[in-house]
C-alpha cells in the first residue's frame, strides 16, 4: 500500500480560488518535502518542513506539518494558471532516512482562467 497518501488525486479550480492538497502518512514524517512538476519535466523544490507544527510560506503557497508529524497540507491562495502542475510530497519515513525519500502519487492541479 502507498505509504504516503496524497489527496485529492486531481483538482480543477477556477482562477482566483483557494485550494488545499493533503499528504498523510501512518508513520512519523522525517523531513517533509513539497515539489511541483510540470508535465514531462523535472521536479521543482517548493518547501521543506521538519518540525511538528511548522508552517512555511512562499508567495501564495503555504505548507504546514501537523504536530504529530504525520500529515502535511499545501495551501494555495488566489490560484493562478501558473500554479497548474503536479504537486508531490516526499518524506523520509524513519529517522536518518531523510535522504531516502518516499513520494506520494501526486496531485494534478488544473487552474481554469
Amino acid at each position, binding site marked *: 500500500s502507498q505509504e504516503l497518501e496524497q489527496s485529492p488525486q486531481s483538482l480543477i479550480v477556477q482562477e482566483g480560488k483557494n485550494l488545499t492538497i493533503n499528504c498523510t502518512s501512518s508513520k512519523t514524517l522525517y523531513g517533509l518535502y513539497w515539489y511541483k512538476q510540470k508535465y*514531462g519535466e523535472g521536479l521543482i523544490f517548493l518547501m521543506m518542513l521538519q518540525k511538528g507544527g511548522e508552517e512555511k510560506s512562499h508567495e501564495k503557497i503555504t505548507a504546514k506539518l501537523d504536530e504529530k508529524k504525520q500529515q502535511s497540507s499545501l495551501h494555495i491562495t488566489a490560484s493562478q494558471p501558473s500554479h497548474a502542475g503536479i504537486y508531490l510530497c516526499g518524506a523520509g519515513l524513519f529517522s536518518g532516512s531523510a535522504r531516502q525519500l518516499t513520494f506520494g502519487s501526486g496531485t494534478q492541479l488544473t487552474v481554469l482562467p
Partner: protein
Amino acid sequence: SQTIHQWPATLVQPVGSPLSLECTVEGTSNPNLYWYRQAAGRGLQLLFYSVGIGQISSEVPQNLSASRPQDRQFILSSKKLLLSDSGFYLCAWVQDGGYNEQFFGPGTRLTVL
C-alpha cells in the same frame, strides 16, 4: 551554482535492446545520487541510490542496473529492455548531511516498443 544534467531527453527503444541513461552533476562534490522512475499518473519510485563512487543500493528488483563510475556521474542501464521499462526517469542529487532537499534533473522519457 549546482546543476544537474540528464540525457537523452527522450528515447524510443525496441524491446530487447540495451539502455544507457546518463546523469551528471556540476558544482558539488560527493553528492548522494538517485534514480527514480515515474509511470504515467503515478508518483516517483526510487530505483537506485548511491552515496559514493562504486556504491549502489537497489530499492526494487528489476531489469535495470546502475553504476557510478565517477563522483558526479550516475548511469542507469539495462541489457534487454522490457515494455514495462517505459516511463519517465529522473535523476536527483542531495548534498550529504542533514535534511537537505533533493534536486532533480529534467528527466528522460523512455518509450519501449
